[in-house]
């Protein structure tokens, strides 16, 4: 079976999705979703253990060999992303049960899980495939299901947000498909490895830079790079809590992966950075993203929205690492991919718990929660410390590598700005903590600690935040390996 892992990874959830939709039982469809995500985790781990050593798995779908059929191609880079997606899903799905029961109308729950699984499928598919058009297909699968998931939010505005996301997402996808089309026209292939071999011959044409431009903008939209992030805050804010936790921790990460794959594998680092000088665009935008959206986050009153803006800032860190175009920088970016998934997942889950009990995630609703929901708020504090980059949390590891990469590139001012970003995180995180712990609680609202079913997944992520912050051997090893593959360095 392990030979077929790449395809089974995608196929199992793909089959599970309609089943979940057909079974109109809340519990069963949830169980199916759990099963699908846990399977994905199992498969992801299997893939990663195989490629950790440097092996590359190439799997021909349906037995058609590479240039003609669709190739699933797994190396350390995407095995890493797959693991992130699967891991978050396998924690978020158990968490979703209680949260969804509270936030989604019961007759839609099985549809919800169906969309959930589809979204997972799409994200896994994007990551696993070696075929650029296949990327687009899975992108649409994940995006459409995400729109659906978001629109299920309680708030009226969830619908408009989902709509907006849909428009913007579709434009992004369209741009990507335009880019892919242009490349296909010029090279006649859709396979990534083929493309990377054939593209150099046609680099001087106008079509390729245009394709590159379309792809850049498309990816930027999907990964919410400043200033194309505007769809994100509302989508995250008004989506059901579990959806926010899941999507925030995965969707943008996969978009970053797509960008990396295209820039480094398909076009090649030399073309993207030396010829197209995309770093000249990415670096400033990343820095502005870090500073500007952190500042916006500071001013937010809704904590989910606050965290959403924080996500945009954190994406800035990842892109910053990418834009350094060095092994160190990429390592930092890839590490943050993983680490940010852990921390933002934990934070949004904590907010889900608050939503579950209090019914609001506005800052003033947090008053006194430190005492009433000690475990939830403690989790929030740890997640927050991680965002800030306090040592012994994963956030610190990311920052350590990112700053080191910036310094190695001689960009000490960039390193300093990264620190400034951390400090802004202190402010927005501490606004919440302060209210939760230092403001007196309103009397007699009967708020109690969140149910265990939500707390356990939440604390699994929190524990991961600390574990991978203290023992970052695995994550740094894989991230470094992936970065080396992307940069074409063999160690």
């Amino acid at each position, binding site marked *: 079976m392990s030979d077929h892992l790449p395809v089974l990874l995608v196929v199992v959830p793909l089959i599970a999705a309609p089943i979940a939709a057909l079974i109109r039982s809340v519990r069963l469809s949830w169980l199916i979703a759990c099963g699908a995500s846990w399977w994905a985790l199992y498969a992801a781990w299997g893939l990663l253990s195989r490629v950790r050593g440097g092996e590359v798995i190439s799997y021909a779908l349906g037995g058609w060999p590479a240039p003609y059929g669709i190739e699933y191609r797994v190396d350390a880079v995407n095995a890493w992303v797959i693991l992130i997606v699967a891991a978050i899903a396998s924690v978020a799905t158990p968490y979703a049960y209680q949260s969804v029961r509270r936030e989604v109308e019961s007759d839609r729950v099985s549809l919800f899980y169906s969309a959930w699984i589809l979204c997972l499928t799409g994200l896994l598919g994007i990551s696993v495939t070696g075929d650029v058009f296949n990327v687009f297909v899975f992108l649409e699968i994940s995006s459409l299901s995400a729109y659906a998931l978001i629109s299920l939010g309680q708030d009226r505005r969830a619908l408009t947000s989902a709509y907006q996301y849909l428009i913007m997402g579709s434009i992004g996808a369209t741009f990507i498909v335009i880019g892919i089309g242009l490349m296909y026209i010029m090279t006649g292939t859709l396979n990534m490895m083929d493309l990377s071999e054939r593209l150099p011959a046609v680099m001087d044409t106008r079509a390729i830079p245009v394709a590159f431009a379309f792809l850049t903008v498309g990816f930027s939209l999907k990964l919410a790079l400043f200033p194309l992030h505007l769809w994100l805050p509302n989508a995250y804010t008004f989506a059901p809590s579990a959806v926010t936790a899941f999507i925030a921790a995965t969707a943008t990460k996969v978009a970053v992966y797509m960008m990396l794959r295209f820039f480094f594998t398909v076009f090649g680092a030399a073309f993207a950075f030396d010829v197209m000088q995309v770093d000249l665009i990415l670096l400033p935008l990343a820095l502005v993203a870090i500073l500007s959206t952190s500042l916006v986050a500071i001013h937010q009153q809704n904590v989910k929205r606050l965290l959403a803006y924080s996500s945009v800032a954190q994406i800035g860190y990842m892109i910053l690492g990418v834009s350094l175009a060095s092994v160190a920088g990429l390592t930092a970016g890839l590490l943050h991919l993983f680490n940010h998934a852990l921390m933002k997942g934990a934070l949004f889950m904590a907010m889900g718990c608050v939503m579950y009990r209090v019914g609001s995630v506005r800052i003033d609703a947090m008053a006194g929660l430190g005492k009433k929901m000690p475990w939830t708020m403690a989790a929030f504090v740890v997640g927050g*410390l991680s965002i*800030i*980059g*306090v*040592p*012994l949390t994963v956030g610190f*590891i990311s*920052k*350590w*590598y990112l*700053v*080191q990469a910036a*310094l*190695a590139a001689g960009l*000490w001012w960039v*390193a*300093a700005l990264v*620190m*400034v970003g*951390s*400090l802004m995180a*202190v402010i927005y995180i*501490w606004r919440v903590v*302060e209210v939760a*712990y*230092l403001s*007196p609680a309103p009397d007699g609202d009967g708020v109690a600690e969140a149910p265990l079913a939500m707390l356990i997944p939440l604390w699994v992520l929190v524990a991961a935040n600390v574990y991978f*912050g*203290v*023992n*970052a*051997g695995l994550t*740094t*090893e894989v991230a470094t390996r992936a970065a080396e593959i992307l940069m074409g360095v063999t160690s």
Partner: protein
Amino acid sequence: MSPVTVILAAVLLPVLAAGLVLFLGRWPNLREAVPIATGTALFAMIYSLMDVVRSGEVVRYSLIEVVPGVDLALHIEPLGVLFALVASFLWPVTTLYAVGYMRGHHEENQTRFFTFFAISIGAAMGVAFSANLFTLFAFYEVLTLCTFPLVTHHQTEEARNAGRIYLGILLTTSIAFQLLAIIWAWQVAGTVDFVRGGFLEGTASPLVLNVLLVLFVFGVGKAAVMPFHRWLPAAMVAPTPVSALLHAVAVVKAGVFTVLKVAVYVFGLDLMGELAVTPWLAWTAAATILIGSLVAFTKDNLKARLAYSTISQLSYIVLGAMLANAYGIIGGGMHIAMHAFGKITLFFAAGAIMVAAHEKKISRMHGLGRTMPFTFGAFFIGSLSIIGVPPAGGSWSKWYLGMGTMEAGQVGLLAVLMVSSLLGLVYLLEVPIRAFFSPPPPDSRRPDDVHEAPLPVLIAIGITATATVALFVNPGPFHELMTLLVTP
């Protein structure tokens, strides 16, 4: 017990004690006996490390490799043992004091208080024994965070603002400067492990090294070098035992300890002496010494005055490090201990006055000495140590710091130390002398039942005041440790 066990226990025991405190929250006597017993045992254990330090044996224990080349590790060296000795001695004493204070003052949330108190000590132990910059930084930040609930103990608007300043400055400086410096050091040297004599020499251009030193000195916000000192007076809203902990034992000493450690183990005295920026930093510390003293003059609130006095005194130690010679380091290291005992006595006394007479303002303490002779007498002795005159321990550190300034050829800095003594003399002694020899303020309607503070408070004050004098007669292990530190 093997040395490794001791240092592991040093970090873990307080945390275990914290857990036990939490568990025993409903039985106050039992709850408070835990830290006292643990602290006493801890002190005994750490004292046993003296032999390890004397033997010169290298003890390093790596807990875990966090990222390749950087591990969470502890080691034993003289400076750390000194800091740990001070902290572990004063922890049970402060706890004893806190027992009297918190009950006498009818404070709420005492269990939480004692819990975080114990954790803070664990973090301080971690700082003391950390074997590399990463570990040091980690415990440094843990210490910042777990003292936050102590600072904001009263949960008032005032406490909240103070907490903002506290956390704001400490986190800002540590992240923006210190962490940057640490990563930078790692980037240029490829290691962050403490090595006697430093590891930065020859790894980077002088410009970078100068910048690094500046980042380190200002990045250690806990050392309160101006202009990053504001957190310290702000944190005065906390209950007095916390102020004692912050200003004498754990927090500020972790700061100056870091500065000394960086000087000896990251830069090395030779390199420090060559850097162009070192004298400038010494003068910055000197300016802090003087300005801190002058501001202390203007404060009528006793704790605020003590806070500025602390700011001033901490820069003695920073100055000692920036002198970049053996005398300066000996003086700075000894001052960690001497200032700790002196200043904690002063804070204890200030708290005792609050508990017994409910007075915070110096101008309202006139005439109180007759009813609280013990407390004000101890205040007098503590003041002598801070001023640096016999018969109090502060004289020794001042002697060595003075030797250091002359070794560095800086007569001006020697003058600063001496002027600071005179300033300290006036702003500190005013308190007990007014209390003893001035009539009470005319409008004071002091209840007749004002007498000395509760017994545990007095015992604690007695212990620290006696220690202050004893350290003059024999500075004991502190001088020995510092000599071992600078003797190659």
